Every structure is written in structure tokens, then in C-alpha cells.
């Protein structure tokens, strides 16, 4: 019988075992498949029941209905606009600002060393 502890890694407070995870995943997949097969088998995909509903808006052809990349997380980026304004002011693309941040971090580290009683 192979060693059951072979695949296990011990973190400081517990363990993680990928083979046990795969067993659990397969068992759950089987349960999901059994539950799916309990549904109705005689549903026909036609008529008004299976048309797309867009709150009454007209439906264009499929190539134009694909959501583009910059529209996907609009709610998140719009509500956090204050955070993105601050961050965009830092990422200017100007190489002088990059060197200025380097000098700022050196100064901050100098202050940290002074506080910690070293210098």
C-alpha cells in the first residue's frame, strides 16, 4: 500500500494534500451529475421561452453584442474613481518621477533607522 503521507505538505498549522482534493472533487462532480439528471428530460428549446431578454431593448446581431474589455468592470472602476485618480497621478510615465520616488524611499528608510534607535 503506498504511503498516504507522500503527497502531503505540512504548513505551520495544518496540511494540504492535492490527491485528497482531487478525490473530493470527483465525488462532488458525481453528485452534481446525479442531481442534474433528476431534471425534466422533455424540454424543447424553441419558441418564445428560450429567446434572450434584454429588458425590452432590441437585440443586435451576435458580433456586436460581445462586451468589450474596458466595459467589463465599469461598476467597480466608477465607484472607486477617487482611488484611481490618486494612482494615475503617480504613474505619469515620466522617468524623473521614478528617480524621485527612489530618493523618497531612501529618506524614509533613513528616518526608520533613526527611530529604531540605531543612528
Amino acid at each position: 500500500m503506498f504511503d498516504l503521507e507522500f503527497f502531503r505538505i505540512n504548513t505551520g498549522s495544518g496540511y494540504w494534500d492535492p490527491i485528497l482534493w482531487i478525490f473530493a472533487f470527483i465525488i462532488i462532480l458525481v453528485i452534481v451529475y446525479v442531481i442534474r439528471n433528476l431534471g425534466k428530460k422533455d424540454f424543447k428549446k424553441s419558441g418564445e421561452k428560450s429567446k434572450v431578454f434584454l429588458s425590452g431593448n432590441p437585440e443586435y446581431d451576435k458580433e456586436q453584442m460581445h462586451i468589450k474589455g474596458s466595459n467589463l468592470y465599469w461598476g467597480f472602476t466608477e465607484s472607486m474613481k477617487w482611488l484611481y485618480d490618486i494612482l494615475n497621478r503617480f504613474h505619469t510615465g515620466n522617468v524623473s518621477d521614478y528617480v524621485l520616488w527612489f530618493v523618497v524611499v531612501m529618506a524614509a528608510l533613513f528616518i526608520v533607522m533613526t527611530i529604531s534607535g540605531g543612528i
Partner: protein
Amino acid sequence: MISFGIPYLAVVGLILIGLFALVFKKNLIKMVIGITIIESGVNLFLITLGYREGSIAPIYTSSPGGIMSLPVPQALTLTSIVIGVAVLALMLSLVIHIYRHYGTLNVNKIAEGEK
């Protein structure tokens, strides 16, 4: 006593002038000159560490007597000067390409043209 400390003051002065030129100037060529000024400062610091007062150059096999300056920092400085020349050549050739594409050497105009 302060005459022994003048090269070290010059090193600090050169590095600060180089950082000032790199951070506050808007022309790309002036930034490249700032980097070479910092590099000159660091090389001067390396050479000054090996100097002893009243010493002769450390290249004799049968020396005429007296103490010699330390040869190891001089070897390190030669390596650093060669590396500095290579970096300067690469930076200037990239500046030539940037000027051909953008038509200007102002950092602000280049940075806002890419947004």
C-alpha cells in the same frame, strides 16, 4: 585638516548635482549628463579611498622607496569607467531613436503623447 576631506565633499557635491539634474530637468540629454556626473562622483570616491599622503604610483616592480597608494581601488575604478562608457553609448543611441519618432526631447511631451 579640512584639506584632507575636500575630495569627499566633492563626491557628495557631484552626486547631489547629478540627482538634481536627473529629477528636475526636462530635457533627455540633460538627464543622461546627470547620470554621467553621478558616475564620475562614485569613481572619484573609489580613487580617493586608496590615496595615502606622499605616496607614489603603484606600478613599480622595483620601486625607488616610499609608500604606494592602494592599487585595488584603481583597478575597480577602471572597470567602472569602462562600464559607464558602455551604458552612456546605449543611452545616447536610444535618445537618437526617440528623437526620430517623437520629434521632441521634452520628457513631458513624450509622456503625454503615449496616454
